[in-house]
């Protein structure tokens, strides 16, 4: 067949696309159970970590989660309840628009909803090395024990170490991501307060 002709070109392009995409589809299908399992595990682990529930090994996460965390829904708003060290703690899975894509994570509050007890990022599409640093430990750890004055928190600090003022450090070079995250968290704190009243 003439390799410069239109028929050959069309047939070749079709076959090439078909073969490569078929292999990809098979790979995607083959890895899907693992990917979904990883995703579920990531979310349950984030909920446990935000609530401050210890787990001895990663493979025990689903069991401990089933045993200690209770899922509650009030008017289509789902949140989680757990007793840690004799106190009730609330957690909520948040998601909202960051700078480039959706940021999802878990925020845990104490019984009176007056302090944050834990914060974990599950997934984001922010710039690696800039906004992407919201998933690093130094960022999430500064939320631990932070008071929530007037029902809102701020992510705008610059070397802020005071746990009473409701302000945590923003990420240098990622002001927009920090602002977006601040908006998301405040929205969910309000919803949680509404649901528990």
């Amino acid at each position, binding site marked *: 067949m003439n*390799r410069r002709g239109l028929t050959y070109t069309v047939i070749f392009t079709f076959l090439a696309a078909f073969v490569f995409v078929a292999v990809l589809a098979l790979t995607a299908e083959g*890895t899907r159970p693992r990917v979904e399992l990883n995703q579920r595990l990531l979310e349950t682990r984030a909920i446990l970590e935000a609530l401050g529930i210890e787990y001895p090994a990663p493979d025990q996460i689903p069991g401990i989660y089933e045993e200690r965390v209770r899922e509650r829904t009030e008017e289509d708003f789902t949140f989680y309840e757990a007793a840690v060290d004799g106190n009730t703690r609330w957690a909520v899975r948040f998601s909202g628009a960051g700078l480039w894509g959706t940021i999802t994570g878990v925020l845990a509050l104490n019984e009176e909803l007056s302090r944050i007890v834990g914060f974990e990022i599950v997934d984001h599409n*922010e710039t690696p090395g800039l906004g992407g640093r919201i998933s690093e430990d130094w960022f999430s750890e500064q939320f631990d024990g932070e008071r929530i004055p007037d029902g809102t928190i701020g992510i705008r600090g610059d070397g802020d170490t005071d746990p009473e003022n409701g302000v945590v450090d923003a990420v240098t070079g990622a002001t927009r991501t920090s602002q977006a995250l601040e908006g998301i968290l405040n929205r969910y704190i309000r919803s949680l307060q509404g649901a528990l009243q």
Partner: protein
Amino acid sequence: MKSQASTVTILKENFWTNNPIFIQILGICSTLAVTNNLVNTGIMTVGVVFVTSFTNLTVSLIKSFIPRKVRMIVQTLIIAFYVIIVDLVLRAYLPEISKALGPYVGLIITNCIIMGRAEAFAQSNPPLISFWDGLTSGLGYMYVLLAIAFFRELLGFGTLFGYQVMPDGFVPWTIMIMAPSAFFLLGLFIWTAKAVMLRKGGAR
């Protein structure tokens, strides 16, 4: 280009005399974007090395069947194929790394080096030597990016591979975290490399 270049010559060209970054000035977007910490840079460049090698191999294997009119589209298809494979494997088996890398795996598709090597080398050379060319091009890209990331992470965060190495009183240079610093460092790198080449009389 000769159809049968020797392995040593190819290695030397891709690492030094025709390096994709500081001679061909390709793949600059990723050089600017991911090089502010060594771990992300390392993983992303490993992805690029894998994709360049196998794209070159595949293009070279089927080159005689590819109609000239659509060869670039077919090359893009092959590149995208390997990048998605890398992405799927990372998601399934190394979820932590996949998370850290975020959108940058997908962006390997747009790295000009890969298509550049497929078009300039694999399209006119036998499979094994094409694979070698892709591998060394990728490695030539890798070491330049790691060198830039070394300085950016050290001065921007005071760390190397995430470990604190600078003394406590060190004030991080915020500019090093931002993309513009990669321009300065890349410029300095090109300057140094060219100066060394001129001294050796090896410049083109």
